[in-house]
């Protein structure tokens, strides 16, 4: 045939395939090494409960990294949003207080993001610096406002907000997993099928190209950071509402796992291309690793090393595919099955 390697090429085009492969392999190992845990539904339901905040942060960060920027301030937003919700819930005693707290928390996230956007786009401070400053500042403000104390919100359990966002469908399926799934689909369409997402990809690819093609680079960045703030606030709300407690350090510890999930998913650190599907599976991979390793019976001291190993493997796989080394390999494999070996099987080479 003319294109013997079309099947391998087709495989290469499936979004997030490498990370799905690694994820399946990992669960395969878990099922074999810890069958009592991993052949029952319970552990999977527990992942669906704990992974969504990490996943939602990862989805937002995927947009930011695709635009060639970074946001290090989301752990502070997770804490700030939780505090805003908790404070209003504690101090306002009306039926709509949970909803007011919910939307004001999102607004607080938007404000933090908007200010990040202004610093990056208008003043021109590199995002790694301005959002690092924002992380310190807003985390500090949250601790100050909360007096460093946690707030117990047992009464949240009885509210609509709790039921809608973190309730259990059919008595077992955590609602936040569906919200996270819905957000994945929605943001996939924003990134891949919307003008805003296309602008993000071109800005990350080459801001000068974006500018001469008439894209409002500064405006798009401000919008992007604002959305990242809102998304991070939503993740913080899920966390607070799920466990009915706000604590000032609730965002800390998310920074590196979320970044790991995004990069495992195949989003390029250099910007220009991002994968929502990859981030989705990357987040479940990172989020289920700890429980999985512990369940296999080996000491939990292994978790960090295994995480590093898997991240290195997944990203190496992404890079080789992304650079077309796989295309070359698949062409060679295809070549062996071609009856006429005189012609090069590589479609990428097109010099006359």
């Amino acid at each position, binding site marked *: 045939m003319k294109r013997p390697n079309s099947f391998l090429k087709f495989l290469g085009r499936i979004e997030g395939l490498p990370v799905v492969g690694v994820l399946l392999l990992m669960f395969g190992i878990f099922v074999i090494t810890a069958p009592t845990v991993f052949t029952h539904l319970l552990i999977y339901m527990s992942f669906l409960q704990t992974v969504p905040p990490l996943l939602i942060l990862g989805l937002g960060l995927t947009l930011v990294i695709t635009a060639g920027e970074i946001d290090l301030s989301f752990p502070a937003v997770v804490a700030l949003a939780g505090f805003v919700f908790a404070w209003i819930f504690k101090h306002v005693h009306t039926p709509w207080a949970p909803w007011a707290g919910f939307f004001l928390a999102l607004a607080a996230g938007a404000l933090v993001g908007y200010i990040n956007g202004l610093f990056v786009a208008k003043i021109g401070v590199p995002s790694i610096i301005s959002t690092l400053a924002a992380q310190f500042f807003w985390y500090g403000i949250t601790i100050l406002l909360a007096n460093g104390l946690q707030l117990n919100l047992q009464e949240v359990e009885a509210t609509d907000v709790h039921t809608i966002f973190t309730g259990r469908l059919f008595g077992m399926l955590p609602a936040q997993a569906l919200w996270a799934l819905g957000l994945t689909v929605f943001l996939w369409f924003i990134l891949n*099928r919307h003008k805003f997402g*296309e602008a993000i*990809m071109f800005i990350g*690819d*080459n801001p000068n190209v*974006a500018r*001469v093609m*008439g894209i409002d680079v500064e405006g798009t960045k401000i919008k992007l950071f604002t959305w990242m703030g809102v998304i991070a606030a939503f993740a913080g709300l899920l966390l607070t509402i799920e466990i009915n407690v706000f604590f000032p350090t609730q965002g800390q510890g998310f920074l590196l796992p979320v970044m790991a999930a995004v990069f495992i998913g195949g989003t*390029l650190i250099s910007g*220009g291309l991002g994968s929502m599907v990859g981030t989705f599976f990357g987040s479940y991979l990172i989020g289920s690793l700890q429980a999985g390793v512990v369940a296999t019976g080996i000491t939990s001291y292994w978790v960090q090393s295994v995480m590093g190993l898997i991240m290195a493997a997944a990203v190496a796989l992404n890079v080789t595919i992304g650079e077309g080394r796989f295309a070359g390999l698949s062409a060679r494999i295809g070549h062996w099955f071609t009856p006429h070996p005189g012609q090069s099987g590589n479609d990428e080479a097109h010099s006359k």
Partner: protein
Amino acid sequence: MAALPQQYAVQMINIEKYFGLVCALKQINFEVGSNEIVGLIGDNGAGKSTMVKILTGVFPPTGGELYVAGRKVNFRNYNVTRAHEYGLETVYQDKSLGEKQVLWRNFFIGREITLPFGFINVRREKEIANEIMVNTIGFRGKGITVDSKVSVLSGGERQGVAIGRAMHFEAELIILDEPTVALSLKEVAKVMNFVNKIKEGGKACIYISHAIADVYEIADRFVIMDRGQIVANIVKRNITLKELDEFLLEYAHGLKDEGEA
């Protein structure tokens, strides 16, 4: 006010540009006919890029007037998008296409065909992108489709995509900024072929280049700039390539070497 001749695609009158106290352009009077290819020549820093950027709305001039197809441009609300609407398109040497992006996105970036709520009509964009590739710029086979990434294209092919895009959007004037830098002879020939399509299509072109031989081959008229001023305006039939080359030596030292390269 006197009516301006309609045959000009663009006309600049006394355009000046200062960056702080530095004068980048002084007293520029420049025009391009509606089906004319003008070669814009000058050394680095002569002001070519500054002039092009004013023309295409990247930034406004400090003073002077600009007419596009006889209409006076109001610089207060002039920008790249407005210039596109007026039919002015620029093909930059290395910043016309997003390299990691697929071709169909590159054709429509900034001017997407949208469904409600700003979502992109991907099917329609791909159909039209394919149409441009096959009919306007004559890409055939070779494994390049609308789903190919720009990074697999050769330098000449990239210029072709950018020129095809400009022609599709009914550009009246296409500005090519150093389109043949770092291209092999074969690729240069491809670009020349694309530029001829602009002329055949009845449109205008400003061709900016250091490669005098290329400019001489393709342009109807040469405008030579030096240190922010236009120093010569020569119609092709009045000068040979050798004369043009010698003339340039007086103004821009070092140009000759690159012209021969």
